[in-house]
């Protein structure tokens, strides 16, 4: 029977020849991960189970990235639970401050998540690793606790939606814009319980950072996972980093899809998702015409915190300054991204632009710390969610965009097109 890449990876990890949508399976996981918000509950559940050791001390990953550097006493207590558990279990992949980065930027960079893997993470944006050709999905803390103990998770095999992107990307259009446009078509529950497989000639030439932005936001359409079959671009990224063997899967040409969406990317402009849902995407030209004054710009996050994202922002910010009263925050995704920013002179450009450079953290993306909004304030952010109160006060607003639009908006103090700067 012809299979999609998602079905093949699930079948492989369930020890089955094939699976079909709707089938319930118990699958072996390659990686189980959690952060400082979700791990404390997972660790408490794990301890209740009475199992002494995690299933594999190299494959249970703890990444304290949300409220770190610890923002208050309670957060410090939460982070301490991870540290103590990592020591007790002798976990090989616990990341302390100074090594830690935003989990979904860090783990691909370190070659810890690989093509063909089955990955569960107690973080909804775990789906990012689909960009490598892995099956990766977010779970809650209790599901994760069971996976930490047994290495196993149950799944219902999802149907797959195929999204085919045609044509060459226009100027300033990024992977971020493709996924915002796609979520705009599907809506926030358009892929509920389903997989989204992204393909087509646009994807075949899209660099890894753009693919990661896309897979990252599959959850914003309600999807179980987003996935892109591995190719030469994937392998060029993975080969120098991989810390173990990996397997390449791809969909059969006659595999079954529940729906196919074809998108001509040549007609897409950079997108801006209006609050309060990621599916409220419009063209940046519309947003610029709406003359939306903003107070803060955040460039970073698991969606857009990679070196290429900062190169793009620097292209616009070079020789420019943030608008008066604008708070421009630059948040490199990892220490390596930060180091690379310094090497390439990007930090100099950002400092000259009067940006604040933060250590790697999820920080303001989820309204944690490092840039919370007051009532009535508005931000443009390269993050992934613009729900009510996401970045602070329930009466503040977040507009989602790519790094070029965010940088242009920081300079002009209102939502702006990159063409207004360059």
């Amino acid at each position, binding site marked *: 029977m012809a299979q999609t890449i998602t079905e093949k990876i699930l079948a492989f990890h369930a020890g089955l020849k094939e699976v079909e949508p709707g089938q319930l399976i118990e699958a072996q996981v390659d990686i189980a991960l959690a952060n400082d918000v979700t791990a404390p509950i997972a660790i408490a559940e794990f301890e209740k189970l009475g199992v002494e050791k995690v299933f594999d001390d190299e494959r249970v990953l703890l990444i304290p990235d949300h409220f770190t550097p610890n923002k208050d006493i309670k957060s410090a207590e939460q982070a301490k639970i991870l540290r103590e558990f990592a020591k007790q279990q002798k976990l090989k992949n616990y990341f302390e401050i100074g090594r830690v980065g935003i989990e979904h930027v860090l783990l691909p960079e370190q070659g810890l998540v690989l093509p063909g893997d089955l990955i569960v993470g107690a973080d909804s944006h775990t789906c990012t690793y689909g960009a490598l050709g892995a099956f990766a999905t977010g779970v809650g803390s209790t599901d994760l606790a069971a996976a930490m103990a047994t290495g196993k998770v149950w799944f219902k095999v999802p149907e797959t939606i195929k999204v085919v992107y045609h044509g060459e990307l226009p100027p300033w259009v990024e992977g971020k814009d493709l996924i915002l446009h796609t979520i705009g078509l599907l809506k926030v529950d358009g892929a509920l319980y389903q997989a989204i497989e992204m393909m087509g000639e646009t994807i075949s030439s899209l660099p890894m950072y753009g693919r990661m932005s896309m897979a990252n936001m599959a959850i914003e359409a309600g999807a*179980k996972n987003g996935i892109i079959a591995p190719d030469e671009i994937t392998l060029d990224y993975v080969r120098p980093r991989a810390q173990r063997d990996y397997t390449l899967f791809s969909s059969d040409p006659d595999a079954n899809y529940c729906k196919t969406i074809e998108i001509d990317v040549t007609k897409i402009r950079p997108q801006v998702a209006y609050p309060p849902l990621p599916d409220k995407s419009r063209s940046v030209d519309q947003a610029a015409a709406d003359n939306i004054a903003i107070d803060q710009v955040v460039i970073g996050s698991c969606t857009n915190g990679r070196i290429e994202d900062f190169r793009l922002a620097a292209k616009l910010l070079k020789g420019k300054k943030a608008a008066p009263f604008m708070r421009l925050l630059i948040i490199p995704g990892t220490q390596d991204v930060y180091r690379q920013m310094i090497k390439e002179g990007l930090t100099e450009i950002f400092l000259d632009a009067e940006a604040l450079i933060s250590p790697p953290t999820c920080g303001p993306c989820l309204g944690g710390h490092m840039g919370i909004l007051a009532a009535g304030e508005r931000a443009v952010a390269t993050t992934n969610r613009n729900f009510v109160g996401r970045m602070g006060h329930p009466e503040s607003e977040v507009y989602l965009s790519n790094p070029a639009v965010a940088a242009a908006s920081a300079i002009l103090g209102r939502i702006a097109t990159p063409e207004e700067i360059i």
Partner: protein
Amino acid sequence: MNNIEGKAWKFGDDVDTDAIIPARYLNTSDPQELAKYCMEDADPGFAGKVAVGDIIVAGKNFGCGSSREHAPIAIKAAGVACIIAPTFARIFYRNAFNTGLLILESAEAAAAIAEGHQVNVDPATGTIKDLTGGQIFQARPVPEFMQKLLDDGGLMEHWRKRLQVK
């Protein structure tokens, strides 16, 4: 499992986990602490007015967004006995089962039941009675596998039994 009877509290479509329990309160995982802020960004003051045994009746895609298990934990600790909605976001759906919060899928019940109505739910059969409105609805049956997990006492109990057998 006994029948549940309580007052209905209505919410709209796409209620996200940030609205259910904002991240500003995620520096703890204590259920009673989380319960104080339950639904704060969707209905400020909800935690103060909801009574033990009450029922949330919401629109489609309830619990979308983050994977935070703090969301069903906060709802359950606030006293809510059941959520009725046409659909639930998938991570929230799993989390609700894993934390022992009853959720029922019924588009008809979610549309018909009004705020403040007295509602009776039979968890065993999925029968939903709008006592005030005088209507009866049947929720979509809980998948057999999930039912088995529930019979075992939830995911962790299920695993505890299996691991002891070995």
